[in-house]
């Protein structure tokens, strides 16, 4: 692969005396989908919110085009899209307005927004409920519109924090299909997930976090080969069992 899109360099995060991230480092390349895996409390969401610039790291840096993002935060924010775990569309506006305004926040013209909405409709099939308010939508539709809002300004990197959590299997499958389409367009994706099946299907590489540290980074196929397992889930179970054995 060529130069990384972003470099996560020794990121640490403390909440009071508790260290949630203990020096996490890895690179994310253009068009790559990296999944963050780990049990509850491993630091997945903390890391994804730092990459999304919602929170600062206590120590460490993130580089975009070999420069610290903190030197010009708005420029970095312009190229990312963040889809948090919980949908946060504005319930007082229609979904169409949520999307249009999101486009405007990123400096898009009306024409660009209209064109992008057509593209997003082709990709995600969002037209049906565009004029509904988010409170009227099911979980699956909310998540679909969250993806649309994340993508409205054509970001280079999107951060998806457990996008399929608490969704029915068929809707989850549908969202996986959308994520594959987004990836095929060359968008880099940092995906936080609990579903190992999801990580196995979608990821180019997985980052296994444990207690705030990176335990493993590799492709799902390499991991399954080296652990002699047929599924990523079995690799993960073995890894977490290893952690529990000494106790």
């Amino acid at each position: 692969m060529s130069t990384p899109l972003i470099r996560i360099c020794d990121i640490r995060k403390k909440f009071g005396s508790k260290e949630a991230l203990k020096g996490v480092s890895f690179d994310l390349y253009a068009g790559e989908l990296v999944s963050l895996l780990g049990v509850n409390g491993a630091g997945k969401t903390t890391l994804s919110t730092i990459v999304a610039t919602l929170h600062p790291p206590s120590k460490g840096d993130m580089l975009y085009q070999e420069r610290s993002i903190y030197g010009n935060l708005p420029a970095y924010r312009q190229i990312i899209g963040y889809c948090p775990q919980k949908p946060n569309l504005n319930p007082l506006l229609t979904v169409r307005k949520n999307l249009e305004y999101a486009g405007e926040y990123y400096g898009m013209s009306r024409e660009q927004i209209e064109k992008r909405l057509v593209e997003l409709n082709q990709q995600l099939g969002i037209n049906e409920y565009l004029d509904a308010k988010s409170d009227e939508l099911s979980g699956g539709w909310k998540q679909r519109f969250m993806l649309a809002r994340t993508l409205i300004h054509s970001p280079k990197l999107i951060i998806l924090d457990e996008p399929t959590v608490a969704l029915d299997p068929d809707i989850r499958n549908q969202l996986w299909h959308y994520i594959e389409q987004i990836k095929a367009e060359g968008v880099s994706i940092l995906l936080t997930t609990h579903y190992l099946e999801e990580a196995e299907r979608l990821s180019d590489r997985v980052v296994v976090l444990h207690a705030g540290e990176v335990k493993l980074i590799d492709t799902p196929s390499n991991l399954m080969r080296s652990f002699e397992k047929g599924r990523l889930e079995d690799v993960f179970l073995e890894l977490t069992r290893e952690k529990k054995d000494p106790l």
Partner: protein
Amino acid sequence: MIRPYLPLMWKLLRTDLEIFTQTIWDKLIDLFIWIVTMVLVTTYLMPAFGLAADYTGFLVASLVVSAGLFELYASVTNLISDFEGGDITSYYLTLPMPSYLVFIEKMVYYTINTATMGILVLPISKLLAWNSLDLSKLSYGKFLLILMLSNVFYAAFTLWVTSRVKGMEQIGSVWMRFVYPLWFLGGFQYSWKVLYLFSPMLAYISLINPMIYVMEGARAAVLGQEGSLNYWVCVVMLFLFTILCTWHGLKRLRKQLDYI
């Protein structure tokens, strides 16, 4: 520093104003009920109990700048509930601009919201009280300046109060701990000079209450300078309190929300 981000701030403001228009009728009805009850009782009923006839003007000047303060409770509640669940603010905090500007935009919105309400108090009160409300000494320029400044102060104070409230379980305290004492001990029903005649020490202590400058400044603008603190002192002090609340509120919010 802020200039490159003004278009984005304007778009955020426009979003807030669109939501404001959805609720404006409810707010106007609430405001109307409040003014009607206060002005009618003060103008037509209280004189029977010995209240001075010109007290209506005194009260109306206080009402004009109090309208915004009553919006504070709703604004703080909205912000706290969003921090705890709605998370719209967290989306704004990832937009391509320095994060603190999200709250500066909120301040501009709160100012427009409350000033819109406040500016209606005077004409409605005049219609209700008519001859009992003498506006011959009203200075329109001073009135608009103090109205804007007091509402900018309320916006800054909203941020500061929000930064002091730990969660929705504490929201009930906002009224009793912050709004009510400041307002009621801030000269809503009495002037600073009357308080000074009663107790100079209490009068000097009350000068740390920003509401004193809001009320006295409004009365100087509506009823004339006589009997009130110097108008320009009120303007300067309100400006300083606004800076202080904004700076400290943003500092605490940054710690509370852990934004960049």
